[in-house]
């Protein structure tokens, strides 16, 4: 980004080396919280902010900070915006303010400035100006980061892709559309039959129509009635067929799409899930794919059918009598306007009714669920008032809608009748004058209703189209996303499964410009137990995420038994590296099913042995249904410790050579922790183990402890060695000893360091 020329001139006069700046960016707010473009320039050894001076006497330079005076740079979130701050001489100074629209941009800027103050060379490129909250093409704000721009959607391309999805069902879809056309064609027939019936049988002799003999007329009558019956039966038949086909094609396409999206989601890397929250993805898999069914229904009974009906009926009206047809069109704009009025003004009032009802439910639920508290505090009267307010809101909302609807419906009825009245008035006169047959007039009136009804619905076409295209594009976006973790074209098999691990100059950041792991190298021998210790955010979990290859390293490599993880078959890697997480994740199903998760073949004896080793067997067997006990979502019905022991049993059964324990005992009570620790001792025997724990007492028996700080390994050694070194580990132990009265931790500090 470049400074405006006049500001650049002023800045140069005030000693700013504009050409030498390696970073120039603009914010939208000044430090008074007012909209104003303020520029940040970073030179080799100084950062400055510049703003357009209000008068020639004022300086353009707002803030100037030498790099050597800055200890830290950070962003701080405010309400509706944020600040870029620098810590200078122990005090955080606000460098600039920004609105939330620029929050992502300034997070990147802060990351670069952190490198700058560490005298490292940050890379700056055009990609840094990319704001994931706005459309890169038109600049419009997006619904959420990385969402589809609703303005820039290539509508044609989306439609083509949707139609391609129908290809496997092309025959059925074509038949379905043909049936829709037939049904529309057939729906025009009854009015024609009525016309013929009246003109030639019931009221002959007008407008030069010949009068039939009685027998012939009776024959005609019977024939016409039979034809009417036949037409209606045919219409019903085609409707049933096209409806069933629509249901088949619609649900099948939705099913196909949902399966494809879900399958693709499971193949995407963990990094993808960092960008989108589970709620958004669920809405895409469940809600957005459902739109496919809607699309097919729109073809059969929705907008397409209505559009064709309007065109076909319109053509029929003009073919019957073009002058009457023109008269028919007179109220058409009013019909359209009243439909628009209904959808925009009246229909939204129903939302209030639904909202009022839902609030009433909520209030009632809260009061009744908390009735003991209400009674204990003697607040019955207050709750009665609260309920009355909610109930009154429901009453008023209903009244509001019903008063309007009771007025609107008769009014729209009159409007619809207006067309009929005009046709009766003009057409009636023409019938009397012999210019028009009575049958033609009656048929005309019949077509009139078929013409007005779909007109009203078509006013919703654009709304539906926007909703459909956005949802579909979102779905396609998932399918178009490539996984960051790809298997090598020719994956190597693991020659031996010893469990030796080596990190070689590994650098990684969840955002590439913000490394979390910085040039880390260390080795773990097969069967070695290594504890990883460090403050929150120091990079411990990131290390194990990389080892499990949930993410790809940015630089360097990780070797497992001498092979780069990227060269290994993913299946084989997963078989070799097992993970026990802080939050054990159990799926809805039986305990048995959860322990054997990930196993192709299951053997009850092995499951029992694994559960026993995990100290899980005793509590499982106490359940009436033992291992066949059905547990709910995420293991509901079990305590945290029980869930964890099941996940350990799962790990034992999985039998990986390398075991990763990520805070496996942090969320359980002391008694459960002891049971879990005992189980872990059994499960880790003979396996390479990498364990993270906040409670340092759980790691003191490790062969080696690695201390991570700010993405780097700063200390490593045995518990005793590190205590003796009196470094970061020693301080962490001391803090925990002071904070906790648990004997396990107290005992840590009381240990006398062995001389080294």
């Amino acid at each position: 980004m470049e400074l405006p020329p006049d500001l650049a001139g002023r800045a140069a006069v005030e000693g700013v080396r504009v050409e030498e700046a390696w970073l120039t960016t603009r914010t939208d707010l000044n430090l008074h919280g007012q909209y104003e473009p303020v520029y940040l320039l970073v030179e080799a050894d100084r950062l400055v902010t510049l703003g357009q001076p209000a008068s020639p006497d004022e300086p353009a330079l707002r803030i100037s900070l030498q790099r050597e005076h800055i200890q830290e740079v950070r962003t701080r979130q405010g309400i509706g915006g944020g600040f870029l701050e620098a810590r200078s001489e122990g005090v955080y100074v606000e460098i600039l303010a920004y609105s939330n629209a620029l929050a992502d941009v300034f997070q990147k800027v802060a990351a670069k400035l952190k490198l700058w103050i560490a005298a490292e060379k940050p890379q700056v490129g055009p990609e840094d100006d990319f704001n994931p909250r706005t459309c890169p093409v038109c600049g419009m704000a997006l619904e959420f980061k990385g969402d589809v721009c609703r303005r820039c959607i290539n509508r044609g391309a989306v439609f083509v892709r949707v139609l391609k999805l129908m290809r496997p069902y092309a025959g059925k879809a074509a038949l379905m559309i043909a049936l829709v056309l037939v049904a529309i064609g057939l729906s025009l027939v009854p009015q024609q039959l009525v016309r013929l019936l009246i003109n030639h049988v019931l009221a002959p002799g007008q407008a030069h129509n010949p009068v039939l003999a009685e027998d012939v007329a009776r024959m005609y009558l019977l024939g016409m009635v039979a034809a009417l019956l036949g037409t209606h039966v045919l219409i019903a038949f085609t409707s049933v067929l096209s409806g069933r086909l629509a249901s088949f094609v619609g649900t099948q396409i939705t099913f196909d799409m949902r399966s494809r999206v879900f399958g693709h989601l499971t193949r995407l890397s963990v990094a993808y899930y960092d960008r989108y929250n589970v709620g958004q993805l669920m809405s895409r898999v469940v809600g957005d794919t459902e739109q496919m069914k809607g699309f097919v229904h729109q073809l059969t009974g929705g907008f397409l059918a209505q559009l064709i009906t309007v065109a076909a009926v319109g053509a029929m009206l003009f073919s019957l009598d073009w002058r009457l047809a023109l008269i028919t069109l007179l109220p058409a704009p009013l019909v359209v306007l009243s439909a628009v009025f209904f959808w925009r003004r009246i229909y939204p009032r129903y939302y209030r009714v639904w909202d009022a009802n839902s609030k009433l439910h909520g209030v009632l639920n809260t009061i009744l669920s908390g009735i003991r508290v209400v009674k204990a505090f003697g607040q019955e009267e207050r709750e009665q008032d609260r309920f009355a307010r909610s109930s009154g809101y429901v009453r008023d909302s209903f009244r509001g809608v019903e008063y309007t609807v009771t007025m609107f419906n008769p009014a729209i009825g009159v409007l619809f009748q207006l067309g009929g009245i005009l046709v009766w008035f003009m057409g009636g006169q023409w019938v009397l004058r012999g210019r028009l047959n009575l049958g033609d007039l009656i048929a005309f009136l019949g077509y009139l209703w078929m013409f007005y009804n779909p007109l009203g619905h078509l006013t919703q076409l654009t709304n539906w189209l926007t909703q459909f295209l956005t949802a579909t594009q979102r779905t396609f976006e998932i399918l178009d996303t490539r996984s960051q973790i790809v298997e090598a074209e020719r994956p190597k098999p693991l020659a031996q499964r010893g469990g030796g691990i080596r990190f070689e100059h590994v650098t990684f950041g969840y955002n590439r410009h913000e490394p979390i792991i910085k040039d880390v190298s260390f080795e773990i021998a097969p069967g070695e137990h290594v504890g990883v210790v460090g403050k929150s955010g120091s990079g411990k979990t990131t290390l194990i995420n990389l080892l499990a290859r949930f993410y790809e390293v940015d630089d360097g490599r990780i070797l497992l038994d001498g092979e780069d993880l990227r060269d290994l078959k993913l299946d084989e890697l997963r078989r070799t590296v097992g993970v026990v997480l802080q939050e054990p994740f159990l799926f809805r199903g039986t305990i048995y099913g959860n322990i054997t998760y990930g196993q192709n073949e299951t053997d009850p004896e092995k499951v029992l042995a694994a559960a026993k080793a995990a100290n899980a067997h005793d509590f499982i067997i106490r359940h009436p249904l033992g291992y066949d006990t059905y547990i709910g979502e995420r293991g509901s019905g079990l305590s945290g410790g029980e869930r964890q022991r099941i996940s350990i049993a799962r790990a034992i059964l999985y039998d990986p050579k390398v075991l990763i324990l990520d805070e496996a005992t942090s969320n359980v009570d002391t008694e459960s922790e002891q049971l879990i620790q005992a189980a872990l001792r059994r499960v880790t025997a003979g396996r390479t183990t990498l364990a993270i724990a906040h409670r340092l007492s759980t790691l003191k028996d490790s062969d080696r402890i690695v201390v991570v700080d700010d993405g780097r390994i700063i200390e490593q050694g045995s518990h005793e060695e590190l205590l003796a070194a009196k470094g970061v580990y020693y301080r962490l132990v001391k803090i925990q000893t002071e904070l906790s009265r648990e004997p396990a931790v107290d005992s840590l500090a009381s240990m006398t360091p062995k001389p080294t």
Partner: protein
Amino acid sequence: MESDSNPQPADAASAAEAPAHDPTEVRYLTPEMCRIHLGSHGALHATVLNDRIYGGVYAAYAFPVAHSDEFISLIHSGGDGDEKEIGIIRDLKAFPEDQAALVRAALQRRYFIHRVQRIHQIGWKYGFVRLDVETDKGHIDFLMRWKTDRAVDYGRRGKVLIDVSENRYLIPDLAALTPKEQQDFRRIIYW
């Protein structure tokens, strides 16, 4: 200027034997024991008697709706990134006007909120709710998602709207809008 590990006393008299205040109790800051001023680079400072000078302070409302000029928390960011409350100003008006102005300016910086004065138009665009409004920061046209968590209650009479960029727009009292504005607004933001 002092570093956080070596706090500089407010003045020589108040310095040394500063009794640490109980962190479980609310400390109310009064003009008698607290002076609010600017330090280097315009950072807000608070000097507390018998305590220390806190540099790089920001202010936050405890009750932004019910008591907008009272119960204002002053928070200090330590060098380790930890944030600690210095104390609460019970009534800002009790402070000298120049100090109160500094706190108000800090609040204005922290709460970047547009106060909606008029709603010119509310409708739909690209599936979003589009609002064309006049605010204390000028005329603004913005898009917001049509979801209940994007228009949240502000007390019993107002609403805070959050646009797609997470910017905030406050309507303190819906009843203060014209009947047409209220009707148009309620038609879409019905909750």
